């Protein structure tokens, strides 16, 4: 929405194998600061794997992941430090069931020793306020709906003040009536200038908020461009086929 040309994440010749199965077949892409990138493509083409390689939840077999100028795949680099600057939101929410809503948010800043418990609590309440969950602070996640859990997961990722948020199909596990609220939260973050990479099947949303779309097919980025380029003017037969099925 207000993308810069300053690279934040650079993927250089990225390959990932699971055993003999080559899932990523040479990815060369850059995510710029304040950019919103949507990754679309058929199921099983490697979207989650690509996203998870960005914060090294999956370790690429070959290539470079350069974050803020540092190749975080270097043996000398501790990925833990870099993950603190990259928030991630999962399809299955993965909120911590044994912690209260508030503790879900404060856990990382307190355990990572970047905030005092008081400061972390204050920030957590502010974050909860932005997603309408302040009154649930003392509850356990079990009491929340799917949509509320996902909004909690989003502000939990925000608590470390990340430079980028990675979303892996954040609304795919939600009941239809919950989807809108979660997308609105993501959209308002994107508008506020948060660098965002989102794997999604919500094409309307991708078209509306993205600076760029990556269409992925069989382990490569087969087509990319602005939403208008990809949704209206692509010549790529795979992209045309995919879009005709999903739209």
């Amino acid at each position: 929405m207000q993308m810069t040309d300053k690279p934040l994440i650079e993927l250089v010749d990225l390959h990932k194998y699971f055993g003999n199965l080559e899932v990523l077949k040479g990815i060369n892409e850059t995510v710029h600061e304040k950019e919103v990138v949507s990754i679309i493509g058929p199921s099983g083409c490697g979207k989650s794997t690509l996203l998870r390689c960005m914060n090294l939840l999956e370790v690429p077999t070959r290539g470079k992941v350069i974050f803020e100028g540092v190749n975080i795949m270097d043996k000398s680099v501790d990925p833990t430090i870099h993950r603190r600057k990259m928030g991630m939101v999962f399809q299955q929410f993965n909120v911590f069931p044994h912690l209260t809503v508030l503790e879900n948010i404060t856990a990382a800043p307190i355990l990572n020793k970047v905030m005092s418990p008081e400061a972390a609590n204050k920030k957590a309440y502010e974050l909860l306020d932005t997603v309408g969950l302040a009154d649930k602070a003392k509850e356990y996640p079990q009491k929340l709906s799917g949509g509320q859990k996902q909004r909690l997961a989003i502000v939990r990722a925000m608590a470390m003040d990340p430079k980028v948020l990675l979303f892996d199909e954040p609304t795919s596990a939600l009941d239809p009536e919950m989807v809108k609220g979660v997308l609105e939260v993501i959209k308002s973050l994107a508008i506020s200038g948060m660098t965002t990479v989102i794997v999604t099947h919500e094409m309307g949303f991708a078209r509306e908020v993205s600076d760029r779309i990556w269409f992925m097919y069989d382990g490569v980025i087969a087509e990319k461009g602005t939403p208008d380029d990809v949704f209206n003017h692509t010549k790529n037969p795979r992209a045309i086929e995919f879009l005709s099925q999903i739209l």
Partner: protein
Amino acid sequence: MISNIIRIWSKYWPVFMQGLWNTLWIALVAIVMGTFFGTFIALAKMSKNKVLSTAATVYIEVLRGTPMLLQLYFFWVGLPYLFPSISDLACVLIALCINSSAYVAECIRAGIQAVDPGQREAAMSLGLTESNIMRKIILPQAVKNILPALGNEFIVMIKETALASVFFIGELMTAFKVVQSNAFLALEPLTIVGLIYLVITLTLSKGMKTIERRLHAND
């Protein structure tokens, strides 16, 4: 027979109670120490370090694959070479602790691996250190799976301590032997001892079920 049982109980009940007390504390010490060491063995077995994980696997397989009675004899014969003045009871206790550490290690490992892998991923994505992930995210959730299994191990251990009566260390089966040789009756004291085991194990498993239900109240 019933009248004999009553007579033996009223005459020898302090012997049986002493035996029960010994059985309970021996089993408890075995489980508590077994849990302490078993935790490290479980972590070693799950470690990425091949040497550690292989050593832990061998340890667990040897202890689970050989009879408890053999292990008791092994330590009862072996330990006095290292510590000449060691008592029979100490040998038995050490053998039980080591045996229990192997079983408990498997309970702990299973309990940890039953935690949704998404929990670890979420914690990793927040930049938590490995030790914080384990201590603050995984273990607190694994405890719900582990505690009931530990309770079962305790019940199993209560029954297993009976094997240690071959060394006459004063637990419930030893009490039976004492009463048998004093009263010249076997079936009656055996029935009494059996009933005591039964009452204890049934009570404990009922208690475990209650605790288990409480633990999962938040799910």
